[in-house]
């Protein structure tokens, strides 16, 4: 089966660049900033960087995982508050932590099909300014009260209120069907794949070290706009050490006794932030003299049956990646950069372990043996969510913009365009993955 990118009549969608605001630990610099504020700030930085003031973009899509119902048109409102033309259409998308990557794939597909010539993909989340709902009891009373016509009827409804109904209902990261938090779910998976504490701490350490080095050499200079006094991700600990990480107490999986290995250091913190990615057709970029960093080659979504423990909650990418690579005639050995979102260090390591496992490859992926091993030297080379933080819907945009720049810097590998894989796990047992290639592609160079 030919991939979408290879089909005749389908043009290329290129990543032109990206912009995000630094990510802030919740309760920090962005405590009072709303999702709309942060998305607008990221968008305005993108507009300024690429000279898009007053421009009518084909479509803008973004989303937030923790979203107040009044923000039903969050992306459109951000566009109206930005310097883009007010005639730019927009829509909201929500696929938990995969939101940002899914906006990239959906908009890239529209560009490939010729429906639009340009697009901005993105996402935002605030754990600080999270919406709080009233309790179910109070909500029902308020709705019934609104429908009641007479005073006695209203009083009768009010009499149903109980003190416990006044307590607000704050959002959490718990799975509705299991009652387990995401961390508790991952703790089960981490234990199942026998991932050690040391391995998780090493991954977290590498994430901080790599992100700090990327900042030091100016990698983020054209990927980031300072906001509210922050010019770097506030979670980044350039001076962290394996000893410091080893000293932290486990926070998830404590009911597993000795097997509890997940700490605040090897799990992502709650974070506030926003990220955007500018996409376009080759012609649209050329007409404006804009860079073409990478092409969006293909994407794949997967979901697992985590509810009764068949697979771990965050293991969907372990299935999505083999399917995506097979469809494109690729193996793990053909990938030059792996961007595997670090929801928890255990998530990344469980996924890698599953791919290296003979039984998993044979029984679950339908292969003749193990899917393969990821060259750790190609994994999250500029750091990932453990260091940068993870404002849920913003992570996809962060990764795609950074990866596109890395691919552009690398150019070609063995005469073919450098190739990157993005893998993002999401609540609900879902995952979205994608392949990007450096631009110009091999064919492009021959012209």
């Amino acid at each position: 089966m030919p991939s979408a990118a290879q089909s005749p009549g389908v043009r290329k969608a290129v990543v032109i660049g990206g912009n995000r605001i630094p990510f802030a630990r919740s309760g920090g610099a962005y405590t009072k900033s709303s999702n709309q504020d942060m998305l607008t700030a990221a968008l305005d930085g993108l507009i300024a960087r690429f000279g898009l003031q007053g421009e009518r973009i084909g479509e803008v899509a973004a989303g937030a995982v923790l979203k107040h119902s009044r923000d039903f048109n969050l992306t459109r409102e951000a566009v109206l508050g930005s310097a883009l033309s007010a005639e730019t259409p927009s829509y909201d998308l929500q696929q938990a932590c995969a939101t940002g990557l899914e906006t990239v794939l959906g908009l890239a597909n529209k560009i490939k099909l010729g429906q639009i010539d340009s697009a901005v993909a993105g996402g935002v989340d605030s754990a600080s300014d999270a919406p709080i709902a009233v309790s179910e009891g109070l909500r029902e009373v308020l709705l019934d009260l609104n429908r009641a016509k007479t005073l006695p009827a209203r009083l009768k409804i009010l009499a149903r209120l109980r003190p416990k109904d006044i307590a607000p209902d704050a959002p959490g990261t718990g799975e509705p069907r299991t009652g387990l938090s995401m961390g508790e779910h991952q703790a089960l998976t981490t234990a199942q794949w026998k991932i050690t504490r040391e391995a998780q701490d090493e991954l977290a350490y590498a994430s901080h070290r790599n992100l700090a080095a990327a900042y030091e050499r100016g990698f983020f200079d054209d990927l980031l706009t300072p906001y509210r006094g922050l010019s770097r991700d506030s979670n980044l600990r350039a001076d962290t050490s394996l000893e410091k990480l080893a000293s932290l107490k486990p926070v998830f999986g404590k009911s597993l006794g000795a097997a509890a290995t997940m700490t605040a250091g090897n799990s992502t913190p709650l974070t506030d932030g926003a990220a955007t990615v500018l996409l376009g057709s080759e012609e649209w970029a050329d007409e404006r003299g804009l860079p073409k960093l990478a092409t969006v080659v293909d994407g794949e979504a997967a979901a697992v049956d985590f509810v009764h423990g068949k697979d771990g909650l965050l293991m969907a990418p372990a299935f999505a990646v083999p399917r995506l690579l097979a469809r494109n005639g690729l193996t793990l050995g053909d990938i030059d950069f792996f961007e595997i979102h670090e929801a928890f260090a255990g998530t990344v390591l469980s996924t890698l372990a599953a791919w290296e496992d003979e039984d998993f490859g044979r029984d679950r992926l339908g292969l003749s043996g193990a899917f393969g091993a990821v060259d750790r030297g190609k994994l999250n080379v500029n750091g990932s969510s453990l260091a940068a933080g993870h404002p849920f819907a913003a992570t996809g945009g962060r990764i795609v913009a950074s990866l596109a720049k890395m691919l552009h810097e690398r150019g070609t590998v063995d005469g073919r365009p450098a190739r990157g894989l993005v893998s993002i796990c999401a609540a609900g047992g879902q995952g979205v993955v994608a392949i990007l290639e450096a631009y110009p592609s091999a064919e492009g160079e021959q012209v």
Partner: protein
Amino acid sequence: MNGTAGQTVLLPEAPSLSKLYLNAAATAARRRISGTRPAAALPGARHELRDVTADVEKLTAFQHLLGESAGDFLPAGFIHALAFPVAMSVLNRDDFPLPLLGMIHLENRVEQHRPVHFSEALDIAAWVENLRGHRAGTLVDLVADVRSKDGGLLWTGVSSYLAKGFFLPGTDTNSVQTNRADAPFSPPDPTALWTLGVDTGRNYAGVSGDFNPIHLSVLSAKALGLKRSIAHGMYLASRALAEVGPVRSDAFSWEVAFEAPVFLPARVAVEISTARDGSGSWLRSDFTGWNPRSGRRHFRGVVATLE
């Protein structure tokens, strides 16, 4: 001429507006008791406050209340609020001849020359000028300018106040032509409808620091002779500026003339119309606000490019 011409008074810190209002009330009482007739001249002193930086939490609250995008650059109305205590301290001088309390803000003109980042240290200066007669009293301009540390002019505001029923010897009551009421106002089709709660004045006082009692509550407004509290003029003007939106150029002027006060709570019908040049570049946005029931105009103004 007067003895304070050219004098610069360097303020050690931002004056407390609540203290200024208290002092103004005391001054008014003192003048009433002693029967002092103030001089018909303005103090020539400039009051300056240096190295002012915005409080980012107040900035965010201001942006949220007025409907501005909560970016890192200061809304022109926020700069007005930063300069306001300095400006008020000039009106609060013993040698300022008009009674501060009860003065009516008639017009405001701001020129903003470039965007100002919230972290930028600002030097603020304020003075009064252009004392003149008006058929209903005496007019004065309160001027503030805001400069960067290299002396570059960032923002200038001219607020025209009317001391109603207050006539000074030597000012010509006919010197100001008032043609504002000349053309009868017929309301256009609104582009927006603002619903202003009774707490609008308190909310704006909270983000701007302007705790003038006429805006805070029915009781405090009644104490100053109003039937109910009224919305701050600069709230209305800042909200109109926010609704003009990011279409405005980096350098712009922003003018407003206040007519009938907005008694709270209120609904205000608003029309904003935008003019562009032949190439589609923004030139100006005119705004008007009126009472949708009576059709009386509350304010009108324009935001226009300075480039």
